[in-house]
């Protein structure tokens, strides 16, 4: 009998301890994800949370080469070899049924980046109190960068979809619906963000400015130049925001502010060779001093490479990448038509295999040494958004629009000279000058995701594409909103042309 009692006691004791230990064994945090209350506690959290804003922005632009699907294809300079989805974009059949098309119509990835920015804007100020290693000034710098990224994203989206929902607070889990906001209002916020960011951003990340004293995050300038948002990036963005709004006075103001600060920014016009060579402009980080004002970066040495997401995937072929034929090419006639001035250095740098059926666009060819011989299809070129030459052309446009023709010609000629072209002579009319600027932008920025927006902005869509004037007035310049977005948010409406 005692034996039994001992056993029963033992058993009950077991149950008792079991009950106690259960609570511990059932309380294990996930190692795969960080619960929200544990985030934004330390300096590392702040760094990771703000870097994620850039990372998500890069994802939005790189996804299915979206940057070029939006900015380049519709402009008709590039021709398609066989891919049906690319053909559909070139033909402006933006409701076609392709998986990639669904991705391009969809703005979720942009809003993921924006939501992360909103989160960071809300949470970053809390971190210095929680972690003494994270100073308020460093926080301000991170915060300013996040605001610059958000401003950039809204600017970028407005050009694609026009009116977009304006979301400025992170999700609280309720997911109430939002309406599309008039795009002027959206740009207003973007401008406000940009101006706010301006105050806390340095001109350069060389450790010699009060906004970023010492090496930012322990890295030298070469790590950040053109990558982390700077005062110059914000001014450039502001100039573009106002240019898109056709507020040329404001746009010119920011252009001037940027260029007058050349000694601070250290931006320089690059040679044609520098622009097109391996490890030149499209690598970005190795090209200092250079002309990259803002780029979405791929850091090869930290395995930030992609198999899709760069233009090279569409434009290169053997022997640079293992692909018999590229997806995109520029027709020989088009090339000869665009680069019609003999001394233009760009034609031979931008194109090779001119006599092939499909000449190869060779401006972007950042096939890293690590992936050559034999080639492996990993791309690491930066998605270059703003560079200095483009700012000269932008200022030239603003000056033209404001009647400052001579100044405009000077800007234009600065870029032309850099590319081996003779200066533009005489006193052209405003229209002639605008045409010349547009043509120069077409040449200089080819393959950088500007062409379509330039056609829209210069109101030349019907001249260069299959869209009519009527279609343009009807809203064909915008992309349709994806079905997924429309279905989930009943307050959204489809862009008029795509209804």
């Amino acid at each position: 009998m005692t034996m039994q009692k001992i056993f029963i006691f033992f058993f009950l004791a077991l149950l008792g301890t079991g009950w106690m230990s259960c609570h511990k064994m059932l309380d294990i945090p996930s190692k795969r994800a960080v619960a929200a209350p544990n985030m934004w506690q330390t300096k590392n959290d702040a760094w990771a949370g703000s870097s994620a804003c850039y990372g998500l922005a890069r994802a939005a632009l790189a996804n299915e080469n979206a940057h070029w699907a939006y900015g380049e294809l519709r402009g008709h300079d590039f021709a398609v070899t066989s891919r049906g989805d690319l053909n559909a974009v070139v033909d402006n059949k933006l409701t076609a049924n392709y998986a990639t098309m669904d991705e391009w119509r969809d703005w979720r990835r942009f809003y993921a980046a924006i939501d992360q920015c909103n989160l960071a804007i809300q949470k970053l100020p809390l971190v210095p109190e929680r972690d003494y290693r994270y100073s308020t000034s460093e926080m301000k710098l991170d915060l300013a960068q996040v605001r610059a990224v958000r401003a950039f994203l809204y600017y970028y989206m407005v050009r694609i979809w026009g009116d977009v929902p304006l979301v400025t607070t992170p999700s609280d889990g309720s997911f109430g619906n939002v309406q599309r906001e008039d795009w002027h209002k959206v740009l207003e916020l973007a401008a406000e963000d940009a101006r706010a960011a301006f105050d806390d951003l340095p001109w350069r990340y060389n450790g010699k400015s009060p906004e970023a004293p010492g090496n930012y995050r322990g890295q030298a300038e070469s790590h950040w130049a053109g990558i982390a948002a700077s005062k110059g990036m914000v001014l450039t963005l502001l100039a573009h925001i106002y240019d898109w709004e056709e507020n040329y006075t404001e746009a010119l103001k920011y252009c001037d502010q940027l260029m007058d600060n050349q000694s601070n920014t250290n931006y320089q016009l690059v040679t044609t060779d520098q622009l097109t060579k391996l490890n030149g402009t499209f690598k970005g980080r190795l090209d200092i001093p250079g002309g990259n004002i803002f780029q979405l970066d791929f850091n090869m040495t930290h395995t930030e490479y992609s198999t899709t997401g760069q233009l090279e995937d569409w434009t290169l072929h053997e022997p640079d990448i293992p692909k018999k034929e590229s997806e995109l090419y520029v027709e020989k006639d088009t090339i000869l038509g665009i680069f019609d001035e003999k001394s233009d250095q760009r034609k031979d740098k931008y194109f090779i295999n001119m006599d092939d059926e499909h000449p190869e666009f060779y401006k972007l060819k950042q096939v890293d040494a690590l992936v050559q011989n034999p080639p492996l299809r990993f791309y690491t070129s930066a998605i270059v958004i703003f560079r200095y030459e483009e700012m000269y052309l932008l200022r030239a446009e603003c000056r033209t629009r404001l009647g400052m023709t001579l100044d405009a010609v000077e800007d234009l000629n600065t870029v032309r000279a850099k590319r081996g072209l003779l200066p533009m002579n005489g006193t052209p009319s405003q229209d002639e000058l605008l045409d010349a600027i547009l043509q120069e932008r077409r040449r200089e920025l080819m393959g950088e995701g500007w062409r379509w927006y330039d056609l829209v902005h210069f109101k030349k869509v019907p001249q260069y594409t299959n869209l009519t004037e009527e279609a343009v007035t009807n809203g064909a310049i915008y992309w349709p909103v994806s079905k997924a977005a429309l279905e989930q948010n009943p307050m959204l409406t489809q862009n008029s042309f795509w209804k």
Partner: protein
Amino acid sequence: MKQKLLLLIFFTAEIGSAGAQGVLYKKTDTVSAAGTAAQQAEQAAPADTIGFVPYNALMRNSSGAVSLIPARDAEISPYADINQALIGKATGVEVRIPSAEPGKRNAAFIRGLSSLMLDNADVMNGQPTYVVDGIPLILDHPFAYDIQRFGVNRLGTEINLLSFLNINDIQSIEVLKDFEATAKYGPLAANGVVNITTYGPRAGKLRVSVNSYVGYALSPDISTTNAAYERDFRLPFYQQYASTGQWQNFPAYLADSTRPEYYGAADWDDLYYRNAWSDGIQAAISGGGRLANFRFSIGQLSDQGVADGTGMNRYNVNFGINIMPVKDLLITTRISAATINRTRNHFLRDRISDEDYVIDLETPPSPNKAILQQYYDYLADGIDDNKDNTIQVMANAQYTFSDKWKLNSRFGIDYVQNFRDLFIPSTLGDGNNFASNFQGLNKRLVWDNSLEYHEDIRDAHHFGVTLGMYTQWDKWSYNYGKAYKGKSDYIKVYEQFNNSNNYQLTANYKDILQSNLASFYANLDYNFKEKYFLSFYLREDGSSDIPAENKWLFSPTVSAAWELSHEKFLSLPSWVNKLNLRASWGLVGKRLPYDYYNAGPVYDVNIGWNGTPNVSTYDAYPVLNASYGLGYITEGIQWPVVEQGNIGLQAGFFDKRLRLQVDFYAKTYRDLLLKVPVMEEHGYTGVVKNGMDIRNRGYEVSLEGDILQKKDFQWTAGFSAYANSNTLMALPGGAHDITIGDRHLVVGKPVDDYWVLVNDGIYRSDEDVPVDPATKEKMSYQGLALRAGDPRWRDLNGDYVIDERDRVLKGSLSPDIAGSFTQTFQYRNMTLGFLFNYAFGREVINQALADRFDFANREGADDLTGVKEVTYWQQREEDYESIPQYNPWSPVQPYQANQTLFLQDASFIKLRTVSFSYDFRGKWMKKAGIERFRLYATADNLWTRTPYKGGDPEAVSYFGYDEGDYNWGFPKRFVLGFNFRF
């Protein structure tokens, strides 16, 4: 009664034994019973029976809706995995085997689907629990899919963890379906339980048994083709529709008929297919005294695939021991270990998925044998080591301290290692090599303590009470590293996190997932005079995956049975020998698949994009972002539960020569988690919340009759059928319908129906396209005006736009009704058995057929759709005439798979097994000390009848899409073997 049960059969008509009596003891621990009961059982089996081991009442630890697969069936039809052994033998189980590649993971679903079937993770999370001698096996976790761009195979070995058991070690397999049978497993029972009992140690003289077989599988009969065949197929499309540009893109390998690689001999099949051998041998020895006895077995199995040089090898050891160190204390331990090597297929598709790199797809493999040989030679220069090791340990101590009290403690470990080393030499990767290394680990610890008490009052009232505590610790982890472009093809091994000079483009991953479960349970059994049975099971389960406020779930189950045949007052006619009516109802929790649901919204690392999902840094700085990809995880997630009611009847008539088992059930999964699409303007792909309900309703019937029972000749026939229909009962937040990928889910409709456009032919000319009288615009497909050569899709809502609203839910892979027929003839020592299985009302999307026509979009495409395998070069028995000649270049995607054109009836009847066995009997055997000597011959998959044209109707993906060459059907196989015991 001397009843010879002739069981080449599948079902549980175990009516002869007092099934109901089992109820009382059902909580008797399986394991503790295994030692003693198995030995009793073996001893009880007289040498002159034909080998069926009577199923001891004690062993029947559960009654209720149970399908039993007896050992003999498995013995003479040796399969390498458990699920295959269930096909046609257990009602209510649907086994899906997308490919007959030996040793590869497959799936079984008991009583329908427990969740949506959208991706591989859903398949893995929907699997039943396999319990071996009381230890629930840990299966692979789908979390490794998260870092894969192409989830063709899960990272790692993809070895079927159900292949570890040697079929000759298995005494019985039971499929437990209702809660009467499964309540004791709590949350592990949510998807049903497959309970496997192995032969345990036994007391008595030393006994040795040897089982062995040799099998021969036939290579399929195909007719190969070369490029001429494909060119002839495509030319009409080109002639009718192609523009100059499209003509220019006519594939080079088809255009040039002088190229011998493509226009030469198409003899790849000589090398690709083979007649394949399989063999297995197992030897066991058991014996010992009453106080200490043991069983030891060792086995080997090898199984060649008929295609692509695939195969598997398994070695396993099993050691069990019972000891009784002091009176009334029985300690049982079992240790089993196994290792499996699996030689994988050499599909380009799978290799691209493994490498996460799309090689140049513009030139497909050649149909020529010499070139295929070269490919194999190059591969032979590489490495593909694919190996799983597993160890299971079970230790059970049972102390019986009076005839009423019993204390039981069981501890178990299940430990599985996955290793894969892959090296692809530069000859195969456009000049670049690739190496990867995967080391995975699944680990489960269980500890179960219970106290049992039972009391009989005046031989009429029987009470049983069990109180217990169960804890389970699960952990999955892996290290994965890959490296591209090593400098040398001679260095073939990549070591993770180890910067080697050879590899520069490396990526390393590590992941850990933990899930713990703690349960307290109380069971109350009562029966009155073996006539009325009542049982309650009350549990409190806690899971580490559930947030603190909802961590514990109380779940009750109740079951009752009435043995009508023991009722005098009913005065049943004398031909009714057995009539048992039973019912059960209850609910148990269903575990969550991931550990990050326990804390509300989370942050993770997800800044990748299509094609590059695994970027974790920006400009070299690690990132942490809100879980946009995973979805917004709501606060306060609760336990999903499954509620099941079951009514069943077991009956025996005419001296139990006619046996019947019928079950009706309704099983509803409630509060399942679902990522629901949400407004996109916060960037989330969805919101994860509770609230999806899925109901499965159905019935299962098994009928078996001994038609002839002469002294020398017996004939038994069996029939079984089961039907299950699933319905989506609710969506989170009261939504009526949602669309996820190419599936559309509507409350009140099945969850796995295809969502298809309805075909009505073709538009021959632009004028044929109807014009909307209101807008004067032509009928369009999502805004693209339809033109000549486009499909005439039915405009169901009449808005002159063909889009999602014109899709209908139609057909599903789940059969409306399925089951089997069996015939068993026994003449003296000879037994001949036939097993047919069937499934009706089962539809498949013939993706392979659609893809063939969709060449315009797939030719040279830079992703998996552009892949062609060497098996591309064969003629198919498809019904090509029925497919209209659409314009394949049309942007409306005329040959998309999800349309009624490609939705095909894939019902079937198969003669799955024919078996013949001869049992030697006679005095000479006794003299020689031989207990059993049986020779057998079995033939598998001899005959199929189906309206489906695309090959084996069962060889389709888990989701019902026929992927053509990637879904290998089972070959015809002939097996010769023996079972020997002395």
